């Protein structure tokens, strides 16, 4: 029989039942949910930003971005993809770039479940390393990645203001 994973990227629309948390691949119909959640998290109302970001991921690695759905709405999302050639890293590398979890649903390990799904996808795509960048001021996010097993990398970020 097919594993649940094989059906996962079937991308047939599923909706969560009341109270049930569902982690699934992001779809175009999640644009609104992601935009709303970003707004709730303080990002402001930025539909164009999310239309571009989501279109970017959907055309490159559509099975990577995942959302958490509960009570019929998006309560978490994680965007990322597998890329090669970034910063001289030729091997396929998973990059986690955006994460958001609804504060009303915190404490349900939503971030961890989102990460498990995206990491599984990265493994299937042949990535042996996953990378992300976290602002030093975001201790909560850093703690989240540490709890998942992420360790500080020797690849240090540098920036120059222009």
């Amino acid at each position, binding site marked *: 029989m097919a594993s649940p994973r094989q059906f996962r990227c079937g991308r*047939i629309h599923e*909706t969560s039942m009341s109270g049930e948390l569902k982690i699934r691949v992001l779809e175009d119909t999640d644009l609104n949910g992601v935009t709303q959640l970003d707004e709730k998290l303080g990002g402001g109302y930025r*539909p164009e930003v999310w*239309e571009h970001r989501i279109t970017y991921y*959907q055309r490159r690695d559509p099975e990577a971005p995942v959302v958490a759905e509960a009570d019929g709405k998006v309560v978490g999302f994680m965007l990322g993809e597998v890329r090669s050639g970034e910063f001289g890293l030729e091997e396929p590398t998973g990059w986690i770039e955006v994460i958001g979890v609804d504060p009303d649903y915190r404490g349900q390990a939503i971030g961890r479940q989102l990460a498990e799904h995206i990491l599984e996808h990265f493994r299937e795509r042949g990535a042996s390393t996953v990378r992300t960048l976290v602002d030093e001021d975001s201790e909560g996010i850093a703690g989240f990645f540490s709890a998942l097993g992420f360790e500080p990398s020797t690849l240090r970020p540098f920036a120059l203001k222009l």
Partner: protein
Amino acid sequence: MSTRKEHIPKSLHNAVVKWRETFLPDYDYLIENWDRFFPNDRRFELCAFRELGMCDEIECGERTGQPKATRACDLPDDAGRHLLGAIKAQASTEFGSIQQHQLTLSRAQDEEEQFWILRMMAEELRHGYQMLHLLSDDDWAKFSDASGAEMVEEILSMRTGSHILGAFNVDFDSFVDNATFCALIDRVGKYQLAMQKVSAYKPMAESMPEMLREEAFHLLAGTVPLRRWMEKAARGSVYITSEDIQKAINKWLPRGLEMFGDERGGGTNVRFGLKPMKNAEAQEQYCKEVESLVAGINMRFIRARLPEISSARAQEILDQIVQERKTVEGIAWEDLIHLPHPHFFRRRGVPAFELAGWEGESFDDVDEYVRHLKQHLPDAYRAGRDFKHYLELLRQVHAGEIELKAAVRAMPDLRRVGGTCPCSKSVRWVVDEPLPAEGTEPGAEAPA
């Protein structure tokens, strides 16, 4: 997750390239400008992708658990005939949609949106190629008298008006159709591909994953422009109104619903292990998904009209307007877009040729119903041959001049062709290859 790249025999590959030069003339422009719009995205390639490591056992139906067929001749007779029909229909839709998009591609106002559609068209060509690969890579003699090359020839010869499924015989009237088609009709395609991923014919199942990945972008090539246009409509754009979008939805959604097949059917596919869901079940899921799409588009309208309100308040307003059908904060029910009743304007399935109104209301008089359709369908569409053909059949059905079954089967058989290019009686798409040199095998060479 990994894929194997394959090509069809050179003569057939060349036929597809020739077809592309005719019906996708902007292909070279797409390739030349690829990096401008899709930097670092994998370059487009005309080839078939087969997913590796997929399930070897039949996943649904009477023979669940038995090994999947890796060759067509191993399929039971009925299942093989059924599957062959599905592959040809799928191939026809892929090539057909390119012909439709090409009609209005140049009318896009936004270069990015136009380029998205152009990429989508190229990927549909690849999807068609994928189906031709299934036809040419196996021996279908058990189920068809036509050779693989003849089947390919027939598919490449089809034009808008002679395709197998109704939605692909409807001309586009404006670039609104390009986006609406992607958002509604490609979404049906997504369901079909997702269901065929469990196919008891393993080459079919292996063909689906990469097509599905590409289809995700095709949906956004429709959804995002529709959302942007709805915001423009909210701001009083002279270029687009919510009524324009509504009428485009009214034009396409009925065709999309019909693409699932008759609501009473689909059991054969499940029994043969070709799909996991019956038609009605898949259609119901699709409707829920389209409801979600429409809600998102409406939210974009409300937020544009009332930029000072919160997301939660916008949701309340949307719910109030839709459920209570009243004007809230100056936004009327008519300002937003809505889904027509699933029986509206149908010509296939359970409600075929019913006089069912946009909200599901019944009409007793054909002329009254025609006036109702006039209110709800785009002007340019009503002036076209598809609508004319539908009205002729509708009148015949209700005058008792044609049986419903015959009307349902009737195609807008305007340009049915077979074997030769429809624009020239002398051109063939598939050109016979010269005899191979001694010691070489015909058709074995992959295209350059």
